Each structure stands twice: as C-alpha cells, then as structure tokens.
C-alpha cells in the first residue's frame, strides 16, 4: 500500500484506555438477586409498593407510580376488607338484607371493568390494567369510611351517629371521586371528559350507598 508507507504511529502518543460498559442497574427485576433473597424482602418490597400507592391516593397529584407500575394487590386487599366489613348486617338470611360478600366483590370488580371499557371505547389512551389499578386504589377512602362507620355504630345507632356517618361517607365519596378523576381524566379526549367522569361518580356513589345503609343487627 504505497500511501500508507509513511504513516506511522508515533510512540509518544499512548493509545490506551478502558473499554467498560456501564452496567445499568434497572429496577430490581433481575432474576439472579431476587431469586436468592429472603422471602421477607420480596414481601416487604411489594408491600412498600402498595403502601406508596396508598399515599399517592391520599394526596392525589401526578403519580407515575400509580399509573406506570400498576398492581392489583392493593385493590384486592381493599375490596376484600370492604366486603368483610359489610358482613354481619341485619336480616342476613332474608332477601332484604345488605349485600353479600360475593355481591360486593362482583360490584366492585365488574363495575371497575365496565368503567375501564367505557373509557377505552370513548377513546381513552390509558391501558386496561392501569385504569383498574387506579379505580381499585381509590376505593381506599371509602374503606376508611366503612371502618369509621363500624366504630361509630359500636357506640350507638341513633340519629347523631347517622349524621356523623353521613358526613364521613360523603366526604370520603368526594375524595374518592376527585382522586380517581385526577388520575384518569388526562388520558381522555377533551370533548368527552364528562362522559368518562360520570360513571366513576356513579360507581363510588353505589359503594357509598352500600356503606351508609349498613345497619348492624
């Protein structure tokens, strides 16, 4: 090669270095470490994720945790505890009593699925499970309301306790609806936001009604 005859690498320019690829540490989804870790760590990690989402529901603001890293453990725990607390109502053997455990379960999950389908059919861009996750987590204020109602009913079942329960359930219903609307409404087309918010309002209204009309034996 004639042109390269006088090209030489001078000795005083060191050509050296390191070729390293920085190892990106992803979120802990690598198979190696999580397989060997103690069970307590696994459970605590999931519980912390669920707890973080609870905090995001309590103070609703833009949260990618609730939307991006969705999980359905939190909604399941809330649904089961709400359904359990709604048991033991009056007239549970006749047809006129409150909702059974299975009925509460079906209403919450079937209602959430129908609302998600509705928002997707209207042109929403949120994914199916993200929407289920948000709707399920926003049941949390109502579960707290149910707890408070049961405690108030332990003290008595008169008019004053009814007024307290009404105020608590009303406040929690407003909180639930506003929280879930804050998360879900941005992904909807702008002319249809009211069409998406109304079923959410109806959903939490039905759950609030079930909580408010709970009467112990």
């Amino acid at each position: 090669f004639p042109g390269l005859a006088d090209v030489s690498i001078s000795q005083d320019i060191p050509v050296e270095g390191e070729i390293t690829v920085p190892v990106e540490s992803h979120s802990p989804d690598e198979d190696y470490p999580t397989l060997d870790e103690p069970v307590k760590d696994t459970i605590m990690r999931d519980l912390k994720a669920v707890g973080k989402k609870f905090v995001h529901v309590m103070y609703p603001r833009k949260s990618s945790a609730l939307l991006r890293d969705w999980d359905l453990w939190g909604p399941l725990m809330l649904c089961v505890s709400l359904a359990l607390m709604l048991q033991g109502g009056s007239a549970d053997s006749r047809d006129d009593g409150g909702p059974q455990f299975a009925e509460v379960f079906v209403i919450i999950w079937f209602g959430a699925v129908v609302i998600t389908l509705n928002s997707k059919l209207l042109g929403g861009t949120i994914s199916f499970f993200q929407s289920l996750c948000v709707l399920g987590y926003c049941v949390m204020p109502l579960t707290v309301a149910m707890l408070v109602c049961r405690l108030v009913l332990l003290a008595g079942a008169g008019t004053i306790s009814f007024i307290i329960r009404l105020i608590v359930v009303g406040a929690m219903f407003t909180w639930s609806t506003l929280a879930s609307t804050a998360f879900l409404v941005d992904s909807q087309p702008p002319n249809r936001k009211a069409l998406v918010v109304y079923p959410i309002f109806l959903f939490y209204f039905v759950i609030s009604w079930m909580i408010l009309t709970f009467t112990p034996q």
Partner: protein
Amino acid sequence: MATADDLKFQEFDDAANLLAANPDATTISIDEPVEIPKNQHSRLQETGREEDDELLGTDDSDKTELLAGQKKSAPFWTFEYYQTFFDVDTYQVLDRIKGSVFPVPGKNFVRLYIRSNPDLYGPFWICATLVFTIAVSGNLSNFFIHLGKPTYHYVPEFRKVSIAATTIYAYAWLVPLALWGFLMWRNSKVMNIVSYSFLEIVCVYGYSLFIYIPTAILWIIPQKVVRWVLMVFSLCLSGSVLVMTFWPAVRDDNRRIAVATVATILLLHALLAVGCLAYFFDAPELDISAPVIPAPIIPAHNGTTVITKSH
C-alpha cells in the same frame, strides 16, 4: 384502521413536500385527496381538533351522511368496531337527553338527534343510573313511610337492585329487539319510507327512559296523588317521543296494524312504569289509621292461632 390513517397522513406530508419541491408538476392531483382524508382523519380518530369538530358540528347533515357509510367498516371482532358505537361527545349526549325530555311535536327524535350516529353510551348508562335510582329511591321512600313505627327495622333491601337491573335492561334491550324484528318483517311486506336500524331503536328507547330518573327521585314523596301525577306526566313525555319516532315507520302499513303497534309500544312503556312504582315503592299509608289498625287485629290474630293449633 390505524395503518390506513397513517398512510393517508403520510401522503399528506409527502404531497406537501412534493408541492414545495415541484410546484408546477403535482398541484392539480393533490387538492382532492387532501380534503377528504382530513375529514376522515378527524372523524375516525378522536384527537379533538377544535376546528374540525366545529366543522362537523355545524355543517354535519351531509357530512355525517357521507361518513356514516364509512364508519362501521372495521370487522366485528376488533375493538375499533365497538368504538364506533361510542363516537359521541359530551354535548351530543346532552342534546339527545334534552331532546328526549322536551319532545318537539312533529320532529322525529331519530332524525333530529341521532342522525346516523347511534351510540350505546346513552342507553347503557341511563339504564344503569335508572336501576340504582329506583332501588335507592324505593329504599328511602320505604324508610320514610315506615319511620315512626315501633316494629320497623331498617333493611337495605339489596336484592331489589338485581331485580331492578334485570327488569330495566331486559326492557331496554329485548323490546327494541322485538320491535326491530317486527318492523323488518313488515318492511318485507309493505314498502315503508322510514326504517330504523336496531341500534337506532335501542338509542330511542334508552334515551326515552331518562325522564324516569327524576321521576323516581320525586317518587320518594309519600303521597299517592303526587306519585300518580308524576307517573302520568313522565309517561306522556317519553311516550310521545316513542310515538313520534315510530308512527312514521308504521303509518304506511295497514291501519289496524299501525295502531296496534303504537298501542303496544305505549302499553309496555306504561307497564314498566306502573310495575316499578308498585314493586319498589310501598304504598303510603294514611297516618291517622296507623295506630288504630294493629289494635283490633291482635285479638283476631290470637283467635286464629288458637284455632290453628287445635287442628
């Protein structure tokens, strides 16, 4: 569907670039295909472009007719097919509800409001709201009626929700199915000018049920006269919407069949209202006779139990 739209959109971009590059070569062929994809793009994808929505809102009669045939072209197993049934904006749903509550004499609800864009949002959520409104109002009204009595213990009566749901959804979906089948059968015998698709009939029935929602709330008032006045009023309003919709569809037919059809529609509608009132709302008793009635019953009750025990 998305790939077809992407192609059209890219053509628009390429045409613009080509136009900028060769102004004299391709001007003529570009103008036509630009406009139609623009309307289709805004119609089929709900991106919320304000100017396109306004264009379709004010000048929508011929454009919706043009695009109606192109709307439901997705195969029925895709999600996009069902999205075409929810292609309504908030103001359209509110207009349709307003049209069902204030019927304009002589104007057809379907032609005026639905205009080849039937939606399933209205019927489904109006029925859901009606189910829960009737159940909750019935429960509240029973609570207020029986409030003073010492033997009364409040029960939430949750079973009635499932009964209400079955009744109302069956009415709102099976009756339109039967009516549609009947109209199709008559259309094969007598050439009618006006014919409706199944979804349009479901739409009319769904929106006509809206008036019952405030009626059910007002039925909490425990006065028989008030309840019956409300019932007749709401029956007149929603019945007139149904009559004005379906009379043009049957009036070319045999006179007796036309009248019988419209009468059946009204009868079923009235039956629904009366049945809901009777089942979910207890009869309001007069306050005067309430403390008096239990007294004479008790000795008779004891008498009957003695008699039965001896058998």
